[in-house]
């Protein structure tokens, strides 16, 4: 396998972007990444998008976006793994370069979620769950994570405060991110008293409905050197799946796909969790961040909540998590999320994170964990300053 680096990053502001279309969002992020990398062409493009068919009635994205990006006859495709579609696009691009099939590849992600009603968005997102045996019975996405939260609280004594602390931390970080949808701080009390969605999860435990896109340019380390950009090498990539339906899993308090994807990424990188300086993880709901921390092996099961309360994952903690604000504060345009996580890790490794959220610890190794549905798929990537 050839060594692969990320040499360009770009993203749109996340939020309710009424004035920009689905295609405009993607092209804006893609052009920003091309400009940042300084490349004069692409060999191919992989786009992560969960369900543009349900959100805007548009499929066939590879061709549409290549055309609007002015890339005639480009080899372009779309990949899907629910909310992990962006992470899958990144892995696909990585493998294409590592295998010497292409030299310069764009991995992008996009979702336009506010062109339909809230009911419509709930329906579209539920397409990532088991339609016949979960959604049919009235389960919603917050509902599925709530089922895991209750199981986790019952088994380990996880508390309301532990969930709230995740939201407070991520909004604090997001308040310093100019690309965030909700760049404001929240208090423990506000989270605990916010509107109930699916007990025990409140609205401030949930990531929002978001429009947005992100894109990165990957190439070989040799070409990266010629471009003169900081070289952020991809040293580990892992991908795993699990049963979509929660009732088909043995244990509701852990995320098996995350554990296995991380093990694969660590093995490829020749590293363990102890060698990682910080991570962007899939906090679609506050309980998800706690379960991911435990499933990655960062904390033993049941111990993540107290660690967040202790500030161990804050910007100045020993293992900062979601310096971007995470999905909670930055926003969660589902197909774009996995790529936006890479954008943040690259910014931190380059020392370019805005408005005082740059880690002072001079990080060298960062990690992303991007999850589909209620944990039915996971992509983990490890990046290092070369």
């Amino acid at each position, binding site marked *: 396998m050839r060594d692969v680096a990320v040499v360009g990053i770009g993203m749109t502001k996340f939020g309710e972007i009424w004035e920009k279309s689905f295609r405009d969002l993607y092209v804006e992020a893609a052009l920003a990444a091309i400009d940042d990398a300084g490349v004069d062409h692409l060999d191919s493009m992989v786009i992560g998008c969960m369900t543009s068919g349900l959100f805007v009635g548009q499929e066939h994205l590879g061709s549409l976006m290549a055309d609007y990006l002015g890339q005639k006859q480009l080899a372009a495709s779309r990949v899907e793994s629910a909310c992990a579609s962006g992470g899958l696009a990144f892995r696909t691009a990585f493998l294409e370069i590592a295998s010497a099939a292409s030299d310069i590849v764009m991995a992008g992600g996009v979702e336009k979620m506010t062109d339909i009603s809230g009911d419509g968005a709930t329906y579209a997102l539920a397409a990532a769950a088991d339609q*016949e*045996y979960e959604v049919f019975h*009235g389960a919603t996405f917050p*509902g599925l994570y709530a089922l895991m939260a209750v199981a986790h609280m*019952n088994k380990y004594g996880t508390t309301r405060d532990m969930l709230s602390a995740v939201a407070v931390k991520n909004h604090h970080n997001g308040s310093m991110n100019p690309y965030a949808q909700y760049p404001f701080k929240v208090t423990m009390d506000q989270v605990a008293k916010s509107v109930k969605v699916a007990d025990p999860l409140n609205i401030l435990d949930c990531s929002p409905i978001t429009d947005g896109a992100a894109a990165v340019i990957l190439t070989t380390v040799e070409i990266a050197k010629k471009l003169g950009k900081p070289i952020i090498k991809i040293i580990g990539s892992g991908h795993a799946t699990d049963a979509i339906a929660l009732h088909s899993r043995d244990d509701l308090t852990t995320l098996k796909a995350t554990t296995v994807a991380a093990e694969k990424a660590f093995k490829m990188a020749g590293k363990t969790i102890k060698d990682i300086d910080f991570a962007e993880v899939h906090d679609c709901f506050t309980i998800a961040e706690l379960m991911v921390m435990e499933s990655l092996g960062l904390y033993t099961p049941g111990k993540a909540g107290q660690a967040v309360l202790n500030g161990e994952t804050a910007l100045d903690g020993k293992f900062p998590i979601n310096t971007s604000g995470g999905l909670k504060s930055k926003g969660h345009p589902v197909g774009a999320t996995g790529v936006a996580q890479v954008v943040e890790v690259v910014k931190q490794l380059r020392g370019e994170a805005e408005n005082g959220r740059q880690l002072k610890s001079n990080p060298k190794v960062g990690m992303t964990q991007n999850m589909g549905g209620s944990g039915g798929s996971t992509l983990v990537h490890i990046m290092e300053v070369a």
Partner: protein
Amino acid sequence: MFPSRIWRESKHRYRLEAGKCKKCGKIVFPYRLICPECGHREFENINLPDTGKLVTYTVIRVAPSQFTDQAPYAVGIAELANGVRLLAQIADCEIEKLKVGMDIRIEFRRIQTDGHHGVLSYGYKFVPKWY
């Protein structure tokens, strides 16, 4: 919802039919073509027991459009006596009395309606044993 899609699942939803692997004994619900434990492809048709214990639950307060008139409603995962788990709504319950480990039985109920002129969907719901 197209009638064939509902009819196709009726043996599971109406009669709780499941498959028991003829090689390793693993019970799959709903029916599958290959055993996820041992890879065997022959199953014996069995019926699931109609009682179990609640493994976890939630109260859905923001519901999708087919269920808005039912909200708030409880949804849970139960483990049946033979170890099979399934997800369903918890009907006829006092929300604040729900707890992990409580006994439930399975009843045949209406699940959702597809508008005023559409198909009525039936299936199973959990009912707490205190009733």
